[in-house]
């Protein structure tokens, strides 16, 4: 089996991450319970005729994919695999609202056409003329990891050489409204710097798109090797430590071999205990980082975490804003990512310096 490398990265988030020449140098702090992305100039990446039918999520995904392609020096790929929890929810809301508002009459095609979950992957393929494998995984907070796993398997087995993998989710009005109603979004606004100390239920919702060029060929500008990816639909707090230990053992690693852990804490007092269990016990001697105070919570927020991990490995630097506990190791060689949302759909990802 061939190893799998991350050869380029791109992220559009609530921070100025679309510029790959910097790495979380200047942090934007938010005091809100919903945070939106910092938009790049989409016109630089998408022709106006195509952009006019695209909702925000599609623009984010297409633009992030183009940044990743540019950085990798590629014009086309063998496959495009995306993960999304809610797909093009803004267009879905628009379409369904017009059905209701116009009493099932006067339905226009654009929002319907653009509302499918595979729209982002489809638009990327149309833009670059990629006729290869095109797939979108929709599985709550493990949507991105499912896409990553698919790409990893294909590259290991030499079914493809270069695969564009990404996670994308957008915010939309009705989506925000209903999640506020059920307190999945925090009732009170929170300052992002104090997210983990909020002591309240729910999360600060966000949006974003992070894309990666995965390849089974190492290049000069390679960020990291993707060692392993695994997902669990359900996992109890009690099972978590042993599951993590077994995951590392399968990769011939022990806890002490992990230089940094990237955790998906979102400040929800009901579910952050999963992270706290690791943080104060199994991983208490490991350098810990977190990221959802920077990008918000969304189904593919872990793709932002993966972007952050790849950048840390490449730059050998841990930005101050993401440090949670512990000191920065002298070398960032092995990075472990752990994420879950509301106690379900857990993921473990291992990246290694190469």
């Amino acid at each position, binding site marked *: 089996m061939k190893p799998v490398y991350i050869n380029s990265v791109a992220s559009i988030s609530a921070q100025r991450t679309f510029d790959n020449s910097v790495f979380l140098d200047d942090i934007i702090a938010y005091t809100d319970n919903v945070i939106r992305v910092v938009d790049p100039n989409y016109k630089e990446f998408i022709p*106006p*005729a195509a*952009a*006019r*039918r695209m909702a925000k999520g599609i623009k984010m995904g297409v633009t992030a994919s183009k940044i990743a392609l540019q950085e990798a020096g590629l014009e086309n790929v063998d496959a495009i695999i995306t993960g999304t929890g809610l797909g093009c929810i803004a267009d879905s809301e628009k379409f369904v609202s017009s059905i209701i508002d*116009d009493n099932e*009459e*006067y*339905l*226009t*095609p*654009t929002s319907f*056409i653009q509302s499918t979950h595979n729209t982002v992957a489809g638009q990327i393929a149309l833009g670059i003329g990629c006729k290869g494998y095109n797939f979108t995984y929709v599985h709550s907070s493990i949507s991105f990891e499912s896409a990553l796993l698919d790409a990893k398997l294909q590259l290991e087995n030499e079914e493809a050489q270069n695969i564009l993998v990404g996670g994308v989710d957008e915010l939309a009005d009705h989506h925000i409204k209903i999640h506020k109603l059920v307190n999945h979004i925090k009732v009170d606004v929170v300052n992002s710097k104090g997210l983990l100390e909020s002591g309240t239920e729910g999360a600060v919702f966000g949006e974003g798109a992070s894309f990666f060029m995965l390849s089974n060929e190492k290049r000069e500008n390679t960020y990291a090797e993707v060692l392993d990816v695994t997902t669990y639909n359900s996992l109890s707090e009690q099972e978590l430590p042993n599951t993590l230990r077994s995951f590392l053992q399968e990769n011939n690693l022990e806890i002490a071999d992990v230089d940094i852990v990237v955790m998906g804490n979102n400040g929800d007092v009901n579910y952050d205990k999963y992270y706290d269990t690791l943080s104060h016990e199994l991983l208490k001697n490991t350098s810990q980082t977190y990221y959802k105070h920077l990008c918000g919570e969304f189904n593919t927020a872990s793709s932002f975490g993966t972007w952050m991990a790849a950048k840390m490995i490449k730059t050998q630097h841990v930005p101050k804003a993401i440090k949670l506990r512990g000191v920065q190791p002298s070398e960032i060689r092995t990075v472990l990512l752990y994420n879950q949302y509301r106690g379900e759909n857990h993921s473990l990802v291992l990246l290694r310096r190469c």
Partner: protein
Amino acid sequence: MEALKEELKSKIIEQLNLEDVSVDEIADDDPLFGEGLGLDSIDALELIVMLDKDYGIKLADPKEGKKIFESIGTMADYITLHKTK
């Protein structure tokens, strides 16, 4: 008639998300499809729905659309003659 033309220009810009186009930039006889505004078949469907929803005009024969949607001027003429609301 002039007011209707201005209204159509605004509606087309808004409905079809022509972000970089202003009302002043669309001449009454500019072709809407092809070399003019560059609209396509999906836009044609949007325009057919707009005629129905805003002016109560149902196009029984889609082939009619080719002439009606030639320009803002031809659209305004057709709407003036056939509108029911």
